[in-house]
Protein backbone atom coordinates (compact mmCIF):
# COMPACT_ATOMS: atom_id res chain seq x y z
CA UNK A 1 0.00 0.00 0.00
CA UNK A 2 2.76 2.43 0.99
CA UNK A 3 6.36 2.31 -0.12
CA UNK A 4 9.01 4.90 0.71
CA UNK A 5 12.46 4.49 -0.79
CA UNK A 6 15.37 6.69 0.29
CA UNK A 7 13.02 9.52 1.13
CA UNK A 8 14.42 12.78 2.46
CA UNK A 9 12.53 15.97 3.14
CA UNK A 10 14.37 19.23 3.73
CA UNK A 11 12.28 22.33 4.32
CA UNK A 12 13.28 25.63 2.70
CA UNK A 13 14.55 26.90 6.05
CA UNK A 14 17.04 24.03 6.12
CA UNK A 15 15.26 21.80 8.62
CA UNK A 16 15.77 18.15 7.75
CA UNK A 17 12.39 16.56 8.57
CA UNK A 18 13.12 13.17 7.04
CA UNK A 19 16.49 11.65 6.27
CA UNK A 20 16.81 8.72 3.88
CA UNK A 21 13.73 6.83 5.08
CA UNK A 22 12.81 3.38 3.75
CA UNK A 23 9.41 2.09 4.76
CA UNK A 24 6.94 -0.44 3.45
CA UNK A 25 3.37 -0.88 4.71
CA UNK A 26 1.18 -3.75 3.51
CA UNK A 27 -2.39 -3.44 2.38
CA UNK A 28 -4.84 -3.87 5.26
CA UNK A 29 -2.34 -3.36 8.06
CA UNK A 30 -2.51 -1.12 11.13
CA UNK A 31 0.67 0.80 11.86
CA UNK A 32 1.69 3.30 14.53
CA UNK A 33 4.16 5.99 13.68
CA UNK A 34 5.67 7.19 16.93
CA UNK A 35 8.25 9.66 18.14
CA UNK A 36 8.48 13.03 19.87
CA UNK A 37 6.91 16.01 18.20
CA UNK A 38 9.16 17.38 15.49
CA UNK A 39 10.62 14.02 14.53
CA UNK A 40 8.96 14.02 11.10
CA UNK A 41 5.75 12.05 11.72
CA UNK A 42 3.46 14.66 10.21
CA UNK A 43 5.91 15.32 7.42
CA UNK A 44 5.85 11.65 6.48
CA UNK A 45 2.05 11.64 6.36
CA UNK A 46 2.06 14.83 4.28
CA UNK A 47 4.28 13.16 1.70
CA UNK A 48 1.67 10.42 1.31
CA UNK A 49 -1.21 12.73 0.36
CA UNK A 50 1.16 15.08 -1.42
CA UNK A 51 0.93 18.06 0.80
CA UNK A 52 4.73 17.99 0.69
CA UNK A 53 7.25 16.90 -1.93
CA UNK A 54 10.22 14.74 -0.98
CA UNK A 55 13.58 16.41 -1.58
CA UNK A 56 14.90 12.99 -2.59
CA UNK A 57 13.60 9.44 -2.93
CA UNK A 58 10.41 7.77 -4.14
CA UNK A 59 6.96 7.78 -2.56
CA UNK A 60 4.44 5.20 -3.77
CA UNK A 61 0.86 4.92 -2.49
CA UNK A 62 -1.38 2.15 -3.82
CA UNK A 63 0.84 1.75 -6.86
CA UNK A 64 0.90 5.48 -7.67
CA UNK A 65 4.18 7.37 -7.68
CA UNK A 66 3.10 10.32 -5.53
CA UNK A 67 6.36 12.28 -5.77
CA UNK A 68 6.13 12.61 -9.55
CA UNK A 69 2.35 12.92 -9.73
CA UNK A 70 1.07 15.74 -11.93
CA UNK A 71 -0.77 18.53 -10.13
CA UNK A 72 -4.00 17.78 -11.93
CA UNK A 73 -3.94 14.19 -10.65
CA UNK A 74 -3.63 15.11 -6.98
CA UNK A 75 -7.41 15.40 -6.32
CA UNK A 76 -7.91 11.85 -7.52
CA UNK A 77 -5.13 10.58 -5.26
CA UNK A 78 -6.67 12.33 -2.28
CA UNK A 79 -10.09 10.81 -2.87
CA UNK A 80 -8.43 7.49 -2.13
CA UNK A 81 -6.86 8.69 1.12
CA UNK A 82 -8.77 9.71 4.23
CA UNK A 83 -6.96 12.09 6.58
CA UNK A 84 -7.82 12.84 10.21
CA UNK A 85 -6.15 15.51 12.33
CA UNK A 86 -5.75 16.37 15.97
CA UNK A 87 -7.93 19.49 15.58
CA UNK A 88 -10.71 17.67 13.65
CA UNK A 89 -10.94 20.39 10.98
CA UNK A 90 -14.74 20.45 10.92
CA UNK A 91 -16.77 23.33 9.51
CA UNK A 92 -18.56 24.96 12.43
CA UNK A 93 -21.46 26.34 10.40
CA UNK A 94 -22.36 22.93 9.01
CA UNK A 95 -24.11 20.05 10.77
CA UNK A 96 -22.55 16.62 11.24
CA UNK A 97 -24.41 15.38 8.19
CA UNK A 98 -23.33 18.38 6.11
CA UNK A 99 -19.72 18.08 7.19
CA UNK A 100 -19.61 14.46 6.07
CA UNK A 101 -21.58 15.10 2.88
CA UNK A 102 -19.29 18.04 2.06
CA UNK A 103 -16.43 15.69 1.17
CA UNK A 104 -18.62 14.01 -1.42
CA UNK A 105 -20.36 17.12 -2.72
CA UNK A 106 -17.18 19.02 -3.47
CA UNK A 107 -15.83 16.08 -5.42
CA UNK A 108 -18.88 16.06 -7.67
CA UNK A 109 -20.62 12.95 -6.29
CA UNK A 110 -24.20 12.45 -7.48
CA UNK A 111 -26.81 13.44 -4.93
CA UNK A 112 -28.29 9.96 -5.00
CA UNK A 113 -24.93 8.51 -3.95
CA UNK A 114 -24.43 11.18 -1.28
CA UNK A 115 -27.78 10.21 0.26
CA UNK A 116 -26.67 6.58 0.31
CA UNK A 117 -23.07 6.96 1.46
CA UNK A 118 -23.38 9.55 4.25
CA UNK A 119 -25.73 7.47 6.48
CA UNK A 120 -23.52 4.43 6.04
CA UNK A 121 -20.46 6.34 7.19
CA UNK A 122 -22.29 7.98 10.13
CA UNK A 123 -23.56 4.55 11.12
CA UNK A 124 -20.02 3.18 11.11
CA UNK A 125 -18.82 5.83 13.58
CA UNK A 126 -22.05 5.59 15.60
CA UNK A 127 -23.29 9.14 15.06
CA UNK A 128 -26.47 8.57 13.07
CA UNK A 129 -28.57 10.00 15.90
CA UNK A 130 -26.56 13.24 16.02
CA UNK A 131 -26.45 13.98 12.31
CA UNK A 132 -28.38 17.24 12.69
CA UNK A 133 -26.15 18.68 15.40
CA UNK A 134 -23.41 21.23 14.91
CA UNK A 135 -19.80 20.48 15.93
CA UNK A 136 -20.04 22.91 18.86
CA UNK A 137 -22.80 20.74 20.33
CA UNK A 138 -20.64 17.60 20.29
CA UNK A 139 -17.98 16.23 22.63
CA UNK A 140 -14.40 16.08 21.42
CA UNK A 141 -14.71 12.37 20.76
CA UNK A 142 -17.87 12.88 18.75
CA UNK A 143 -16.22 15.64 16.74
CA UNK A 144 -13.33 13.34 15.93
CA UNK A 145 -15.79 10.59 14.96
CA UNK A 146 -17.45 13.09 12.61
CA UNK A 147 -14.05 13.83 11.09
CA UNK A 148 -13.42 10.10 10.70
CA UNK A 149 -16.83 9.67 9.07
CA UNK A 150 -15.89 12.41 6.63
CA UNK A 151 -12.52 10.83 5.92
CA UNK A 152 -14.14 7.45 5.26
CA UNK A 153 -17.30 8.45 3.41
CA UNK A 154 -15.69 8.05 0.00
CA UNK A 155 -14.41 4.54 0.84
CA UNK A 156 -10.69 5.31 0.76
CA UNK A 157 -8.22 2.45 0.85
CA UNK A 158 -5.92 4.30 3.24
CA UNK A 159 -6.70 6.24 6.42
CA UNK A 160 -4.02 8.58 7.77
CA UNK A 161 -4.40 9.87 11.33
CA UNK A 162 -2.18 12.67 12.61
CA UNK A 163 -2.38 12.65 16.43
CA UNK A 164 -6.08 11.71 16.30
CA UNK A 165 -6.39 11.57 20.09
CA UNK A 166 -4.16 14.54 20.90
CA UNK A 167 -7.11 16.68 22.03
CA UNK A 168 -9.12 13.92 23.73
CA UNK A 169 -9.47 12.60 27.27
CA UNK A 170 -8.61 8.92 27.98
CA UNK A 171 -12.13 7.52 27.58
CA UNK A 172 -12.66 9.32 24.25
CA UNK A 173 -9.20 8.19 23.22
CA UNK A 174 -10.13 4.54 23.83
CA UNK A 175 -13.36 5.04 21.89
CA UNK A 176 -11.53 6.49 18.88
CA UNK A 177 -8.85 3.79 18.88
CA UNK A 178 -11.51 1.08 18.98
CA UNK A 179 -13.23 2.74 16.06
CA UNK A 180 -9.97 2.86 14.09
CA UNK A 181 -9.46 -0.82 14.81
CA UNK A 182 -12.97 -1.63 13.53
CA UNK A 183 -12.27 0.35 10.40
CA UNK A 184 -9.04 -1.57 9.91
CA UNK A 185 -10.88 -4.87 10.28
CA UNK A 186 -13.08 -3.86 7.36
CA UNK A 187 -9.96 -3.79 5.19
CA UNK A 188 -8.82 -0.16 5.28
CA UNK A 189 -5.10 0.36 5.80
CA UNK A 190 -4.65 2.61 8.87
CA UNK A 191 -1.56 4.64 9.68
CA UNK A 192 -1.64 6.52 12.99
CA UNK A 193 0.97 9.08 13.98
CA UNK A 194 0.92 9.56 17.74
CA UNK A 195 3.02 10.15 20.81
CA UNK A 196 0.44 8.63 23.14
CA UNK A 197 2.39 5.85 24.80
CA UNK A 198 -0.60 4.24 26.56
CA UNK A 199 -2.51 3.81 23.31
CA UNK A 200 0.42 2.26 21.49
CA UNK A 201 1.35 -0.10 24.29
CA UNK A 202 -2.23 -1.31 24.75
CA UNK A 203 -2.85 -2.04 21.07
CA UNK A 204 0.28 -4.10 20.36
CA UNK A 205 0.45 -3.32 16.67
CA UNK A 206 3.33 -2.62 14.34
CA UNK A 207 5.27 0.36 15.67
CA UNK A 208 7.60 2.46 13.51
CA UNK A 209 9.67 4.83 15.59
CA UNK A 210 11.07 8.02 14.06
CA UNK A 211 13.93 9.93 15.64
CA UNK A 212 15.48 13.01 14.02
CA UNK A 213 13.94 12.12 10.66
CA UNK A 214 15.27 8.55 10.63
CA UNK A 215 13.59 5.25 11.44
CA UNK A 216 15.01 4.19 14.79
CA UNK A 217 13.19 0.88 15.00
CA UNK A 218 10.30 -0.94 13.34
CA UNK A 219 8.66 -3.75 15.35
CA UNK A 220 5.73 -6.06 14.68
CA UNK A 221 3.51 -6.05 17.78
CA UNK A 222 5.79 -3.45 19.32
CA UNK A 223 5.79 -0.98 22.19
CA UNK A 224 6.21 2.77 22.26
CA UNK A 225 9.68 2.33 23.73
CA UNK A 226 11.42 -0.78 22.48
CA UNK A 227 11.74 -3.33 25.29
CA UNK A 228 10.21 -1.00 27.82
CA UNK A 229 6.62 -1.96 27.09
CA UNK A 230 6.26 -4.16 30.14
CA UNK A 231 7.68 -1.65 32.60
CA UNK A 232 5.46 1.03 31.17
CA UNK A 233 2.32 -0.83 32.16
CA UNK A 234 3.70 -2.07 35.51
CA UNK A 235 2.76 0.05 38.52
CA UNK A 236 5.48 2.11 40.15
Amino acid at each position, binding site marked *: MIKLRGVSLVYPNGTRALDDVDLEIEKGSFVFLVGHSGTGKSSLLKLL*YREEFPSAGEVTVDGIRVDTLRR*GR*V*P*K*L*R*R*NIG*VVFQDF*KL*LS*HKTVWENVA*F*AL*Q*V*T*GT*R*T*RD*VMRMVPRSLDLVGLSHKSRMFPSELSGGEQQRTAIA*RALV*GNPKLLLCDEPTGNLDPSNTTEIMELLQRINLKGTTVLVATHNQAVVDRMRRRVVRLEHGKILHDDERGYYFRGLGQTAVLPG
Partner: protein
Amino acid sequence: MDWGKLRFFLGEVFANFTRNAGMQFTAIGTVAVTIVLLGSFLFVRETIQTFGTGVLSQIEIAVYLKDGVTDAKAKDLASTLAADPRVAKATYVSKAAGIKRMQDVLGKDFDTSLLTTNPLPNAYHVRVKDADEVPAVARAIARDPRVAKTDYAADTVQKLLKTAAVLGRAGIALIALLSISAAIVIANTIRLTVFARRREIAIMQLVGATNMYIRLPFIAEGMLAGVLGASVAIGVLALAQAQVVPKLAQTLAFVSFQVNELTLCLELLAVGAAVGIIASWLSVGRYLRT
Protein backbone atom coordinates in the same frame (compact mmCIF):
# COMPACT_ATOMS: atom_id res chain seq x y z
CA MET B 1 -29.56 17.19 -14.39
CA ASP B 2 -28.72 16.62 -10.74
CA TRP B 3 -30.76 19.28 -8.91
CA GLY B 4 -29.19 18.33 -5.59
CA LYS B 5 -25.77 19.34 -6.93
CA LEU B 6 -27.09 22.65 -8.22
CA ARG B 7 -28.85 23.35 -4.94
CA PHE B 8 -25.67 22.61 -3.01
CA PHE B 9 -23.64 24.89 -5.26
CA LEU B 10 -26.10 27.79 -5.12
CA GLY B 11 -26.50 27.28 -1.39
CA GLU B 12 -22.74 27.60 -0.92
CA VAL B 13 -22.55 30.73 -3.05
CA PHE B 14 -25.49 32.35 -1.29
CA ALA B 15 -24.31 31.42 2.21
CA ASN B 16 -20.83 32.81 1.57
CA PHE B 17 -22.19 35.88 -0.07
CA THR B 18 -24.38 36.73 2.90
CA ARG B 19 -21.77 35.71 5.46
CA ASN B 20 -19.39 38.30 4.05
CA ALA B 21 -22.15 40.84 3.58
CA GLY B 22 -20.07 43.74 4.85
CA MET B 23 -17.23 43.13 2.45
CA GLN B 24 -19.57 42.42 -0.42
CA PHE B 25 -21.32 45.70 0.29
CA THR B 26 -18.02 47.54 -0.17
CA ALA B 27 -17.31 45.73 -3.39
CA ILE B 28 -20.79 46.33 -4.77
CA GLY B 29 -20.54 50.01 -3.81
CA THR B 30 -17.22 50.45 -5.56
CA VAL B 31 -18.43 48.71 -8.67
CA ALA B 32 -21.54 50.87 -8.61
CA VAL B 33 -19.55 54.10 -8.34
CA THR B 34 -17.20 53.01 -11.11
CA ILE B 35 -20.03 52.03 -13.37
CA VAL B 36 -21.96 55.24 -12.71
CA LEU B 37 -18.87 57.12 -13.90
CA LEU B 38 -18.48 54.77 -16.82
CA GLY B 39 -22.17 55.04 -17.68
CA SER B 40 -22.22 58.84 -17.57
CA PHE B 41 -19.14 58.92 -19.70
CA LEU B 42 -20.65 56.58 -22.25
CA PHE B 43 -23.81 58.67 -22.23
CA VAL B 44 -21.94 61.90 -22.85
CA ARG B 45 -19.79 60.28 -25.50
CA GLU B 46 -22.74 58.85 -27.34
CA THR B 47 -24.57 62.17 -27.18
CA ILE B 48 -21.57 64.03 -28.58
CA GLN B 49 -21.17 61.42 -31.26
CA THR B 50 -24.83 61.63 -32.26
CA PHE B 51 -24.60 65.40 -32.23
CA GLY B 52 -21.34 65.37 -34.19
CA THR B 53 -22.63 62.96 -36.80
CA GLY B 54 -25.76 65.05 -37.11
CA VAL B 55 -23.76 68.21 -37.69
CA LEU B 56 -21.36 66.52 -40.06
CA SER B 57 -24.15 65.05 -42.13
CA GLN B 58 -25.61 68.52 -42.53
CA ILE B 59 -22.46 70.19 -43.75
CA GLU B 60 -22.94 71.51 -47.23
CA ILE B 61 -20.54 72.78 -49.78
CA ALA B 62 -21.78 76.01 -51.25
CA VAL B 63 -20.78 76.16 -54.91
CA TYR B 64 -21.07 79.69 -56.33
CA LEU B 65 -21.23 79.92 -60.09
CA LYS B 66 -19.63 82.59 -62.22
CA ASP B 67 -21.97 85.41 -63.20
CA GLY B 68 -21.84 84.69 -66.89
CA VAL B 69 -23.02 81.14 -66.57
CA THR B 70 -26.53 80.77 -67.98
CA ASP B 71 -29.25 78.79 -66.27
CA ALA B 72 -29.02 76.05 -68.87
CA LYS B 73 -25.27 75.70 -68.44
CA ALA B 74 -25.72 75.71 -64.69
CA LYS B 75 -28.22 72.85 -64.95
CA ASP B 76 -25.58 71.00 -66.93
CA LEU B 77 -23.31 71.11 -63.93
CA ALA B 78 -25.86 69.07 -61.94
CA SER B 79 -25.09 65.92 -63.92
CA THR B 80 -21.33 66.49 -63.44
CA LEU B 81 -21.83 66.80 -59.72
CA ALA B 82 -24.14 63.80 -59.52
CA ALA B 83 -21.56 61.71 -61.36
CA ASP B 84 -19.21 61.98 -58.38
CA PRO B 85 -19.91 58.92 -56.18
CA ARG B 86 -18.98 60.87 -53.03
CA VAL B 87 -21.82 63.33 -53.55
CA ALA B 88 -25.10 62.56 -51.81
CA LYS B 89 -27.20 65.37 -53.17
CA ALA B 90 -26.77 68.55 -55.19
CA THR B 91 -29.49 71.17 -55.06
CA TYR B 92 -29.59 74.07 -57.47
CA VAL B 93 -30.36 77.42 -55.90
CA SER B 94 -30.88 80.18 -58.43
CA LYS B 95 -30.38 83.86 -57.68
CA ALA B 96 -34.13 84.29 -57.11
CA ALA B 97 -34.45 81.20 -54.95
CA GLY B 98 -31.43 82.37 -52.95
CA ILE B 99 -33.08 85.68 -52.08
CA LYS B 100 -36.29 83.93 -51.12
CA ARG B 101 -34.42 81.52 -48.92
CA MET B 102 -32.68 84.36 -47.16
CA GLN B 103 -36.00 86.06 -46.58
CA ASP B 104 -37.41 82.88 -45.15
CA VAL B 105 -34.52 82.53 -42.74
CA LEU B 106 -34.16 86.16 -41.66
CA GLY B 107 -37.82 87.18 -41.89
CA LYS B 108 -38.77 90.86 -41.55
CA ASP B 109 -35.24 91.98 -40.75
CA PHE B 110 -34.24 91.33 -44.32
CA ASP B 111 -35.45 94.30 -46.32
CA THR B 112 -35.24 93.71 -50.09
CA SER B 113 -36.71 97.07 -50.95
CA LEU B 114 -33.29 98.68 -50.68
CA LEU B 115 -31.77 96.39 -53.29
CA THR B 116 -31.69 97.42 -56.91
CA THR B 117 -30.22 94.20 -58.22
CA ASN B 118 -29.96 90.69 -56.83
CA PRO B 119 -26.41 90.42 -55.46
CA LEU B 120 -26.52 86.66 -55.00
CA PRO B 121 -24.87 84.34 -57.50
CA ASN B 122 -26.46 81.19 -58.83
CA ALA B 123 -25.35 78.36 -56.59
CA TYR B 124 -25.42 74.67 -55.83
CA HIS B 125 -25.68 73.28 -52.37
CA VAL B 126 -23.80 70.02 -52.38
CA ARG B 127 -24.15 67.45 -49.62
CA VAL B 128 -21.39 64.86 -49.30
CA LYS B 129 -21.97 61.30 -48.11
CA ASP B 130 -18.94 61.07 -45.87
CA ALA B 131 -17.94 64.14 -43.88
CA ASP B 132 -14.27 63.20 -44.30
CA GLU B 133 -14.56 63.76 -48.03
CA VAL B 134 -15.84 67.33 -47.80
CA PRO B 135 -12.49 69.08 -48.43
CA ALA B 136 -11.56 66.82 -51.37
CA VAL B 137 -14.96 67.17 -53.04
CA ALA B 138 -14.88 70.93 -52.59
CA ARG B 139 -11.45 71.11 -54.25
CA ALA B 140 -12.63 68.97 -57.17
CA ILE B 141 -15.66 71.11 -57.77
CA ALA B 142 -13.63 74.31 -57.59
CA ARG B 143 -11.62 73.18 -60.65
CA ASP B 144 -14.69 73.36 -62.88
CA PRO B 145 -14.54 76.46 -65.16
CA ARG B 146 -18.15 77.41 -64.42
CA VAL B 147 -17.50 77.62 -60.69
CA ALA B 148 -16.45 80.90 -59.14
CA LYS B 149 -15.86 79.72 -55.60
CA THR B 150 -16.62 76.91 -53.21
CA ASP B 151 -17.21 77.43 -49.56
CA TYR B 152 -17.73 75.16 -46.58
CA ALA B 153 -17.19 75.20 -42.83
CA ALA B 154 -13.71 73.79 -43.22
CA ASP B 155 -12.42 74.50 -39.76
CA THR B 156 -15.52 73.27 -38.05
CA VAL B 157 -15.48 70.01 -39.97
CA GLN B 158 -11.85 69.34 -39.20
CA LYS B 159 -12.23 70.20 -35.53
CA LEU B 160 -15.29 68.07 -35.09
CA LEU B 161 -13.62 65.13 -36.74
CA LYS B 162 -10.57 65.52 -34.57
CA THR B 163 -12.62 65.86 -31.38
CA ALA B 164 -14.59 62.74 -32.19
CA ALA B 165 -11.40 60.75 -32.72
CA VAL B 166 -9.76 62.03 -29.53
CA LEU B 167 -12.89 61.34 -27.52
CA GLY B 168 -13.00 57.83 -28.87
CA ARG B 169 -9.45 57.12 -27.77
CA ALA B 170 -9.73 58.88 -24.42
CA GLY B 171 -12.92 56.96 -23.82
CA ILE B 172 -11.27 53.60 -24.32
CA ALA B 173 -8.45 54.58 -21.97
CA LEU B 174 -10.85 55.86 -19.33
CA ILE B 175 -13.04 52.77 -19.53
CA ALA B 176 -9.97 50.58 -19.12
CA LEU B 177 -8.77 52.56 -16.09
CA LEU B 178 -12.14 52.53 -14.37
CA SER B 179 -12.60 48.82 -15.01
CA ILE B 180 -9.16 48.06 -13.61
CA SER B 181 -9.86 50.01 -10.44
CA ALA B 182 -13.16 48.20 -9.96
CA ALA B 183 -11.44 44.87 -10.59
CA ILE B 184 -8.82 45.65 -7.95
CA VAL B 185 -11.47 46.36 -5.34
CA ILE B 186 -13.40 43.19 -6.18
CA ALA B 187 -10.17 41.21 -6.16
CA ASN B 188 -9.39 42.51 -2.68
CA THR B 189 -12.86 41.67 -1.44
CA ILE B 190 -12.67 38.18 -2.86
CA ARG B 191 -9.22 37.78 -1.36
CA LEU B 192 -10.70 38.61 2.02
CA THR B 193 -13.51 36.11 1.55
CA VAL B 194 -10.99 33.54 0.37
CA PHE B 195 -9.01 34.21 3.51
CA ALA B 196 -12.14 33.93 5.65
CA ARG B 197 -12.80 30.56 4.05
CA ARG B 198 -9.28 29.15 4.07
CA ARG B 199 -10.41 26.30 6.35
CA GLU B 200 -13.06 25.29 3.89
CA ILE B 201 -10.64 25.51 1.00
CA ALA B 202 -8.09 23.44 2.91
CA ILE B 203 -10.70 20.75 3.55
CA MET B 204 -11.82 20.81 -0.06
CA GLN B 205 -8.25 20.30 -1.19
CA LEU B 206 -7.76 17.57 1.39
CA VAL B 207 -10.77 15.52 0.30
CA GLY B 208 -9.78 15.84 -3.36
CA ALA B 209 -11.85 18.65 -4.83
CA THR B 210 -10.39 19.94 -8.10
CA ASN B 211 -9.09 23.50 -8.23
CA MET B 212 -11.76 24.32 -10.77
CA TYR B 213 -14.44 23.19 -8.36
CA ILE B 214 -12.95 25.23 -5.52
CA ARG B 215 -12.74 28.25 -7.76
CA LEU B 216 -16.27 28.13 -9.12
CA PRO B 217 -18.20 29.44 -6.08
CA PHE B 218 -15.81 32.37 -5.73
CA ILE B 219 -16.18 33.22 -9.37
CA ALA B 220 -19.95 33.07 -9.05
CA GLU B 221 -19.63 35.32 -6.00
CA GLY B 222 -17.48 37.85 -7.87
CA MET B 223 -19.86 37.83 -10.79
CA LEU B 224 -22.78 38.38 -8.44
CA ALA B 225 -21.03 41.35 -6.82
CA GLY B 226 -20.24 42.79 -10.25
CA VAL B 227 -23.75 42.38 -11.59
CA LEU B 228 -25.34 43.77 -8.42
CA GLY B 229 -22.98 46.75 -8.52
CA ALA B 230 -23.85 47.35 -12.15
CA SER B 231 -27.56 47.11 -11.37
CA VAL B 232 -27.27 49.71 -8.62
CA ALA B 233 -25.33 51.91 -11.01
CA ILE B 234 -27.96 51.52 -13.71
CA GLY B 235 -30.63 52.52 -11.20
CA VAL B 236 -28.67 55.63 -10.25
CA LEU B 237 -28.06 56.52 -13.89
CA ALA B 238 -31.73 56.04 -14.77
CA LEU B 239 -32.73 58.38 -11.94
CA ALA B 240 -30.12 60.93 -12.99
CA GLN B 241 -31.24 60.74 -16.58
CA ALA B 242 -34.86 61.33 -15.65
CA GLN B 243 -33.83 64.40 -13.61
CA VAL B 244 -31.11 65.93 -15.72
CA VAL B 245 -31.87 65.20 -19.34
CA PRO B 246 -35.15 67.20 -19.63
CA LYS B 247 -33.35 70.27 -18.26
CA LEU B 248 -30.43 69.77 -20.63
CA ALA B 249 -32.80 69.26 -23.52
CA GLN B 250 -34.36 72.62 -22.71
CA THR B 251 -31.10 74.53 -22.65
CA LEU B 252 -29.41 72.67 -25.47
CA ALA B 253 -32.36 72.28 -27.77
CA PHE B 254 -30.19 71.53 -30.80
CA VAL B 255 -28.63 68.45 -29.17
CA SER B 256 -30.61 65.26 -29.25
CA PHE B 257 -30.28 63.12 -26.12
CA GLN B 258 -31.19 59.85 -27.67
CA VAL B 259 -29.10 57.04 -26.28
CA ASN B 260 -29.85 53.38 -26.86
CA GLU B 261 -30.65 52.61 -23.24
CA LEU B 262 -31.04 48.85 -23.53
CA THR B 263 -27.66 48.42 -25.19
CA LEU B 264 -26.04 50.70 -22.64
CA CYS B 265 -27.57 48.75 -19.73
CA LEU B 266 -26.46 45.44 -21.17
CA GLU B 267 -22.97 46.82 -21.75
CA LEU B 268 -22.72 48.03 -18.16
CA LEU B 269 -24.00 44.72 -16.77
CA ALA B 270 -21.50 42.86 -18.93
CA VAL B 271 -18.68 45.10 -17.70
CA GLY B 272 -19.72 44.49 -14.09
CA ALA B 273 -19.91 40.74 -14.54
CA ALA B 274 -16.62 40.56 -16.45
CA VAL B 275 -14.81 42.67 -13.87
CA GLY B 276 -16.14 40.44 -11.07
CA ILE B 277 -15.22 37.21 -12.81
CA ILE B 278 -11.71 38.28 -13.75
CA ALA B 279 -11.02 39.70 -10.30
CA SER B 280 -12.12 36.61 -8.41
CA TRP B 281 -10.39 34.27 -10.84
CA LEU B 282 -7.10 36.02 -10.18
CA SER B 283 -7.43 36.31 -6.42
CA VAL B 284 -8.46 32.67 -5.87
CA GLY B 285 -5.85 31.47 -8.32
CA ARG B 286 -3.11 33.03 -6.29
CA TYR B 287 -4.36 31.20 -3.20
CA LEU B 288 -4.65 27.82 -4.90
CA ARG B 289 -1.11 27.91 -6.26
CA THR B 290 0.43 26.36 -3.17
